């Protein structure tokens, strides 16, 4: 089945009127996607740490149970940290959503095919790990419902959104890790965060 969704539009829709949503993005294309939708101090775009985006999200979700946490990452990044889906399944954080933007490619290294191109079904993996909601999403009509579900405390939620494999202009967030950390904490925790 050929993908029809375009990744930048998907992320724009998911982050529209994001309110207090805390967002972690996996390295590479998904970090550019969330930045294209509008840079925010409550974005934590990773520039490394491949395979661990979902765990950053889990640590944050457990620390901030009253806030919604959204991890947006790529298929290759998620495949490198499949064990984290089992770890999240054990914890059952109601406020955590993991959305994989799945172009079935390693976009930053030459668009080589990933395991999902060969049919590996990440949504079924997440479902088997105990995610309350785990779906593949292929159609624009389902994105509004996905966005609404991300804002409900009924997780953990997982979505594997199939998108067109395309190379897009880079939209880069700041890349100084200490800056990204400090601005996130200050925006979330207030000025006191700098003194903790």
């Amino acid at each position, binding site marked *: 089945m050929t993908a029809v969704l375009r990744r930048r539009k998907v992320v724009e829709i998911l982050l529209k009127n994001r309110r207090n949503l805390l967002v972690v993005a996996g390295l590479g294309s998904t970090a550019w996607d969330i930045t294209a939708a509008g840079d925010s101090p409550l974005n934590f775009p990773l520039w*490394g740490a491949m395979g*661990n985006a979902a765990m950053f999200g889990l*640590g944050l979700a457990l620390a901030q149970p009253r806030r919604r946490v959204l991890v947006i990452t790529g298929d290759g990044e998620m495949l490198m940290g499949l064990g984290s889906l089992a770890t999240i399944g054990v914890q059952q954080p109601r406020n955590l959503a993991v959305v994989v933007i799945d172009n079935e490619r390693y976009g930053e290294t030459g668009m080589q095919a990933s395991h999902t191109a060969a049919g590996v079904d990440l949504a079924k993996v997440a479902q088997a790990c105990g995610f309350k909601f785990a779906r593949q999403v292929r159609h624009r009509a389902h994105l509004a419902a996905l966005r609404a579900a991300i804002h409900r405390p009924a997780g953990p939620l997982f979505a594997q959104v199939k998108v067109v494999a395309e190379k897009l202009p880079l939209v880069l967030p700041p890349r100084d890790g200490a800056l990204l950390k400090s601005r996130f904490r200050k925006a979330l925790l207030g000025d006191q965060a700098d003194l903790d």
Partner: protein
Amino acid sequence: MKRSDNSWPATLLRTLKAAGVRQVGYVPDAGHQRLIELCLADKAIKSVLLSAEEEGIGLAAGAWLGGVRGALLMQSSGVGNCLNQLGSVRECRFPLLMLITMRGQAGEFNPWQVPMGQATPTVLEAMGVVVHEANAAEAIAPKVDAAARLAFGSYHAVAVLISQAVIGIKSFQDQASR
């Protein structure tokens, strides 16, 4: 070799809580068995079972982003799994407190544990982690207290290596002969 003092895990948990640690990631480990049990029984601690040690680096970093202090329990063989993830800790200046039970030291029976155990302090230091060694049970809590102050006070990654002399030596030969 006998365990020199069985009370250190309880003292250690009190030390962690006094340092403000509220989240503990762990991979099940014989040397940390008692401490893990105590963490799981403590309502003030969120204990998170990890499927691999590197998950705990992201967990602790995410917790800090959310204003919570974490600690990470593992054995030395898990250190190798963490190395690339430690790069993000250094780049972002995340505080990180790792408590590592050692294998592959004096008296080790399993030769497959020796390479990673012997390389543990070197590779941690290569990734910018400050390494403290605790070679006696009574030294563990004070070392961890100092490590926590350095980690959370100075936004640094610190590992306390708990010597095999403290946790005892696993002997599969003994177990097989029983």
